[in-house]
């Protein structure tokens, strides 16, 4: 097989050329991060990559890295977004919430959804859990009393392989005030 993409590879390795040096700011879980494009952030960095690798928010999980499993879901200005399909440079000035931002850091009190997931054992391996909790939060913030069907629709893009779906729905319904 012949060499391929050799020059492309080299080009991608040097990141500053062409992009003016510029700061972008992200507010993550209430904390402001200033990032310099070309130094801290490459134009091809996804938000998932920046949050995990550059800023250390490893509660953000990457499974497929192609926008089809929901594991990397974070909230941008309250909306559930796939951070593996979002470029960091598009997020200048945005308010981002990761799973680490749900707990009340002063009191140590968990968000009601987090507590409900514990009470209902609504996870097994836990890899999909941060993304699911954040999608559920986005749903409840908009619509505090969703139906079971609305919850299922909201979570349709989340891959859970252990079979925790049934308890996830119960946990969310409990928070929505509709639990049995």
């Amino acid at each position, binding site marked *: 097989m012949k060499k391929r993409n050799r020059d492309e590879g080299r080009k991608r390795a040097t990141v500053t050329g062409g992009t003016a040096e510029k700061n972008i700011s992200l507010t993550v879980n209430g904390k402001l991060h200033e990032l310099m494009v070309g130094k801290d952030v490459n134009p091809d960095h996804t938000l998932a990559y920046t949050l995990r690798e550059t800023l250390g928010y490893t509660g953000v999980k990457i499974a497929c890295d192609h926008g089809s499993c929901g594991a990397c879901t974070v909230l941008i200005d309250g909306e559930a977004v796939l951070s593996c399909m979002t470029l960091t440079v598009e997020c200048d000035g945005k308010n981002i919430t990761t799973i680490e931002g749900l707990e009340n850091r002063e009191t140590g009190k*968990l968000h009601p959804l987090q507590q409900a997931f*514990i009470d209902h054992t609504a996870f097994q391996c836990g890899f999909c859990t941060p993304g699911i909790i954040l999608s559920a939060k986005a749903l409840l913030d908009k619509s505090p009393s969703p139906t079971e069907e609305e919850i299922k629709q909201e979570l349709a893009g989340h891959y859970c392989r252990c079979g925790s779906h049934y308890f996830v729905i119960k946990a969310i319904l409990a928070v929505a005030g509709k639990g049995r």
Partner: protein
Amino acid sequence: MGGEYRHIGKATPRKDARAIVTGSAQYIDDIKLPGMLYGRVLRSPYPHARIKNIDTAEAEAYPGVKAVLTYKNVPGWIGGVPYHRPVLDSTMRFVGDAVALVAAETVEGAKEALELIDVEYEQLPAVYDMEEATRPGAPQIHERIPGNVFPRGFRSIGEKALQEIVMGDVDKGFEEADFITEGTCGYENIPNPLPPEPPGVIALWEDAEHLTIYTTSQSAAMNRNFGQPLLGLVDMRVIGTQCGGSYGTKNANMIPMVHAVALAKATGRPVKVYFNKEEHFNAYSLRLGSRIHARVGIKKDGTITALEGEWFVDTGAASEMAQVQVAVGCGEAQLALRCKNWNLQPKLVCTNRNPSGVVRGFGGQELKSSLLPIMAIAMEKAGLDPLEFFKKNYVKPGDGYYWRDGLWWDYRGIDFSKAMQKGADVFGWKDKWKGWGKPTAVNGNKRIGVGVGVHGNADIGEDESEAYVKLNSDGRAVLHSCVSEAGMGERSAVCKMVAEVLDLPLNRVEITAPDTMVNPFEFGLVGSRGTYTVGSAVIEAAEDAKRKLFELAAPVLGARPEDLETKDGQIYVRGNQQKAIPWRKAMGITRTLTGQGRFETDFSLCNCMMIFAEVEVDVETGKADLLRVVAATDCGQIIDPLVLEGQLHGSLGSAGIDTALFEETILDKDTGRIMNCNMIDYKWRTFVDLPQFQNVILETPIPSHRFKAIGVGEVAPAPGPSAVLMAISNAIGKRIMDYPATPDRILKALGRI
């Protein structure tokens, strides 16, 4: 039954629950060691090829690259049985096979360096069908596997490892039969269990003799048990990280491990090898392919008089331990099909498709999924209700079986037919079952059908476990047990057992990290063995520690040790709790007490899982929907009801029930490439597609250990695929003998395409 215990049988929060819901649980890719490099793998674009030339000079010179390895300069470690998996080879045997390894300062740098490696391949003819692979003149895949058929047996499960099912007199059995049927059924869709987290390993050589591995395995200790002999008996410490799903696949995790270890050796730095999803699809663990040609003799009353056949098992281009899967599958067939006359001959074959590995169901799901549809033909001929047939033919106390070690084991467990009947009652089997090939209901184009399957496993008592329980004088206990957490809640379950024996609050029992350096021997979480085997060792260790505590306390309390009790870190003479002393008064504050426990293999108990399925098939479009599942079992004693229910719900995915409906790995047999190696084209069940799911869990005490409990999680999916196939066949009145029953197969069976 939970009433008699303080913790056992009650739903309690998992020990790691807070870490999981706050995102602080540490999975392998969340760990960065100082100085760590990133390893990446160049993968073969061809299913079968020889490297004619490989030039790595430019990759080696690329900034940040610390090592480039090819078959020419890797260590000579070789795995598999017989040895056929070197670290790297000059021959590629599937699309995605490892060509070269790179370690670099960044993931991006490593990826870019891979593109600078020049490889010239000579393409070789490839073979994908297991029967074709065994014919004369077929392409030879491994030098050490002549004719592409693996030699039988497996060294680590004993000299007599079960290689076939041969007993009684098959000819005589067929003479006694009222009905004889034969058929062929394939379970060859090689689905991918596909845990959300890809596999990964970090390797670190502390010095030339001391290797440390961080692994995302469900059985950290297994990585050492298998890895140490492979790596020349170096001192190997294995630390398990939180595991983001395994379903068996991350059992020994050998392939990423040897790559990380080789790169770490070459660079003198820690190296992480972490697959991306594409690699996870192409170069990790698919389910085995299974095809059986079988002949069955049965009597009118459902007695099976003879069973013979040839069982082809396709492991793809390589195998870690498929012979053991074949052995366990053969054992499990005997559990569900009591028969005195057997001749079942397995043939384990390699082909040029992506390799199979260890997967939940471990040979048994593959065999059942292909054998039970043939049994269904026999039942139909005899006019038998499958529920009654399975109740009659599931192993009973007083029966026995040849297990994977090739030895005969007398079964000393319970009769599971009560659980099967209870499941049937909840499902409404009596009303829904209308006979073979008959739908339960017809609504326009929609046909409802029902089916049932059964499976069980005696590996619940497999292999050895050891545990220590250390008592601290402050009234707390620490359990040393090398148990990982892959979602089954086992680390919490064993803590509950210790807390129950010592009558402590749960928050006063902690468990050590899954680290082979600080823990005694453990085999790992496989085969639903955690509850019985690990549990037994843990209980014995806690009881031993308690005994030592009472010996010290007896003189202080002026009583005999056997008259003492402990609760919440206090010791007292039975019946006189008012005069209690704290542990420290017995132990002193400068002492710890350690109890030890060990479990030895016992195959004389098994579990049982029955799955009832109700499907709706649209005969115009051919689409089959799963409406309802009832999973019925008897686990002796529930340890945690929510954890157990979750494991049974897990029978849908992880290459389970849904392999009868839509889950499959589709191979392009011109190029050898997987056509659906991404999470959009590989179909999986979403939240909106959930069927109704009910678990029926009985608790008939089973003579395992103190808590009379056994595990069942691993086998939960195994009866599902054949149950669904039966349900679809009944709905449409036509037999389907292939998986998955996708619309095209259903329409074809209906004669519409």
